[in-house]
């Protein structure tokens, strides 16, 4: 088996198990009360972590680069209640522009 196949099979199996463990353990019964109260707050916590992680980090380094300019444009588009596609295009366009002007 090649390196690629080993990685694909191992990561695939691990991910299937990670995504599916919850529904296997909590089959047809409600979540424990404390956990149920926690679940609605999981989305804002994880989404915020994804936002800062994908805007301002690279591996273990905190970085300021063109992505931050793109996020500024996205925030403005969001505040103006622009459609999602317009907001995404603004983020990509401004990041690309900043990069073309020499930002990392």
């Amino acid at each position, binding site marked *: 088996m090649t390196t690629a196949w080993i990685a*694909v099979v191992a*990561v695939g199996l691990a991910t299937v198990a*990670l*995504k599916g*463990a919850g529904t296997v353990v909590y089959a047809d019964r409600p979540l424990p009360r404390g*956990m149920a109260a926690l679940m609605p707050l999981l*989305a*804002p*916590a994880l*989404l915020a972590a994804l936002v800062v992680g994908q805007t301002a980090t690279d591996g273990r380094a905190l970085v300021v680069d063109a992505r931050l300019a793109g996020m500024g444009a996205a925030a403005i588009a969001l505040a103006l209640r622009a459609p999602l596609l317009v907001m995404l295009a603004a983020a990509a366009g401004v990041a690309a522009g900043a990069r073309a002007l020499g930002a990392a």
Partner: protein
Amino acid sequence: MEASTIMADAARGSQARTRTRSAEREARSGRHLRADLVAGARAAAPIAIAAGLFGVSFGVLARDAGMGVVPPILMSLTTFAGSAQFAVASVLEAGGAVTAAIVAAVLLNLRYLAIGVSVAPALRGSAGRRLAEAQLAVDESWAVSQTDGRVQRGLLLGAGLVLMVAWTSGTVAGVLGGSALGDPADYGLDAMFPALFLALLVGQLDGRRARVAALAGGVIALALTPLVPPGLPIVAAALGAVFALTVREVRQ
């Protein structure tokens, strides 16, 4: 606020939720499923364009990493989680060990343990069916499937299917079509996903607890980034949700 009062509040809230949940479940089974599937697919449509473009760039990177044609495509179908797949291709492309690639990807996907638990109450049917449906949970489909703090099965499956088709088709195009596109960063595509997550996040901030969870999650993720391997800061950000339970809820 006293801790005991918070617990009592939480208990009353969860009892009320359990009652409405079972009523809603009845109402939604069957008749509403098709409408939810369509609504989920529609909500995911603009996101799917971004996912498709990223699928192309994953395909290109995977091919440059010498992963061949079938493995990257199969990976998009089975792993179906962008950041972990990019991590594998990046490590292999840089000549890293396969164990390093696997560990990095599994760390990045650890958050799916929590996401899988939050999805669990929405799924029904045999164990095999629930296991299969849970695979359609990816950050974006999970975020758009949240209704009043709960995951709605039809929304999750509709959005997940559209995203899986877009992500996998993009991967096929990238693997076969090649690097005519150049570096995705030149087009600012790497700024599109945090922007997307920001839009999804803003839709979630409907109460004081949600805002505290977001703030705490973001701060935790940033603070831990230099200290622990990639992927773990996002997992630790879940503690922001635990912290948010300690503040009194105020809905807008």
